[in-house]
């Protein structure tokens, strides 16, 4: 059952990702990306990481993608004709095929390689309490760096977007 759900959500996530890139309509792309995020959050839930799954839904699929949709609608983007010519397209096919072959080789080798034994998840793994505990003990430094990182990102975004300095 779990395996079935994994494959189902995994394939759906892949489909949504590829379709998002291929779609020419920005709104369709954004909606497909929401679908992708949703599938990812389902995968997190399958991994017992419930907090991450909920956060993924709330923050990414919810807040950020709604913002993206708003921006797309406010900008009122038109469909644009692609500038890819025939010649480049054939090159792309060759490139994708070569890369695909490479990835297939690596993946098939990895499939036959023995995986290290996974440790059983500790009791309460993935809950808010467990994540919070670890954030304020072992991971307190990365936690703080993340706050500085977000501040730098905000300053940068405002800097680039502000009309007059």
């Amino acid at each position: 059952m779990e395996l079935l759900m994994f494959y189902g959500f995994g394939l759906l996530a892949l489909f949504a990702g590829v379709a998002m890139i291929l779609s020419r309509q920005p709104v369709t792309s954004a909606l497909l990306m929401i679908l992708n995020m949703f599938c990812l959050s389902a995968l997190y839930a399958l991994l017992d990481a419930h907090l991450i799954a909920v956060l993924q839904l709330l923050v990414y699929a919810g807040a950020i993608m709604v913002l993206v949709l708003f921006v797309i609608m406010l900008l009122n983007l038109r469909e644009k004709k692609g500038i890819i010519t025939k010649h480049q397209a054939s090159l792309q096919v060759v490139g994708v095929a070569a890369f695909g072959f490479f990835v297939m080789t690596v993946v098939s080798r990895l499939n036959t390689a023995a995986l290290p034994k996974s440790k059983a998840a500790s009791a309460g793994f993935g809950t808010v309490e467990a994540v919070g505990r670890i954030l304020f003990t072992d991971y307190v430094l990365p936690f703080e760096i993340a706050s500085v990182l977000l501040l730098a990102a905000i300053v940068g975004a405002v800097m680039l977007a502000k009309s007059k300095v």
Partner: protein
Amino acid sequence: MPITIPPIDLLAVAPEIAVSGFACLLLMTAVFLKGKGGWVNACVALVGLAVAGWFALCQGAPRSAYSGMYAADGFTQFFKIIFLLGTGLVVLVSVKYNEEENMNNGEYYALLLFSTAGMMLMAAASDMMTLFLGLELLSISLYVLAGYARNRPGSNEAALKYFLLGGFAVGFLLYGMAMIYGATGHTDFAGIGREAARGADNRLYLVVGAVMLLTGLGFKVAAVPFHQWTPDVYEGAPIPVTAFMSAGPKAAVLAVMIRVYAQSVSFMHVDWLVWLSVLAVMTMTVGNVAALVQSDAKRMLAFSSISHAGYAMVGLAAATREAVASVAVYMLVYTLMNIAVFGILALVARKNEQRTKMRDFAGLARSNPVLAVSMTILVFSLAGIPPMAGFMAKFYVLMAAVKAGLYWLVLAAVLNSAVGIYYYLRFTVHMYMDEPEEKLPPVKASPALVVAIALSIIGVLLIGVVPSAYLEMAGRAVVSF
């Protein structure tokens, strides 16, 4: 259940705290200054860097802090000083340029400081978490800085290109980290190394992960074949930002490579040696050959910075203590000379960076002889001509490689430096033997730029004449990890 908070070692991260704190202070002074008196911002930034430098110097005994996330050792300390020095020089170079280009605001210096904090965290990272967050802090600030000249299309292009390709490269890095974590169950370098040395069943996952990690880091250090973004981004970004990008971040990534290499991946020494050697040879050769044919000085310096990363990677491939120390000294010297060269280029390029061609240096010897002599000293050092520091730095790296038995790698490096001499000397030829095409008022260096150039020339000559003292310092720094 009560939480036992682990000891918080504030002194270890004091430099990062100081730099980030002063960055926040800059965001506030910018509000009060209302766009006037940009030099105040530069002064605040310099004070912040000095405070951080002071904290870095009195860091104390080598130790591991924050549950093994952060290594406060001599190696960290040495690289922190390099970063702070580099950022200080960039601030000095920026003052006049930013005033002319109307971008002298607090946010610029704040972003410089944020990315410096990121670099320091990278050099100190002994866990993939800290490493990744430090790298992101550095990168995000750099993406914005590359696009800081917002009215110039080239700058916009640089920022966008850097952002897209950088995001792609970080994907590789993260996937590699996930592979390594999956194979070993550890995110700290020491744990990865222990686990990897133990079992062979996870070896393939480790190798794939390590290759991806190397790809991501190679992108950041602009190693060939991950260098395609470099010329365009370096050319488009404002000159002080290019100076910054070409020095500090490279040193930071090399520090990470040294640490990852030394602490966790040494179990597959042979594989790394081959990969790193191939990367080093390609990086040196492509960088130098491409630099030969450039007519734009900014682009040429971009390619020359690629080749310098290649020389440093020769030392990395040798991977003895001695080699690591020589790489550290190399990055120190490279930071000093490269930023000053870009400072002079910013001056010669004049307003709006309209004159960045090599031939725009023509007649500089007559119009501003002091500047021409400074430039000559700096490019001689870049080319590796004694008695400048560039020669000694290269010499020690190559000597360490010879001792490690990497003769063909050393041969490639020597041949490449011979190629390098040709295009570096083109600056001198233009300055001393060419007539300028048009009459322009002579360029005049601002006091801040004079200080920056003087500092780096003193550094270049000092390290060039008494290199052993600095090498010993770096050697002591390396021993502690």
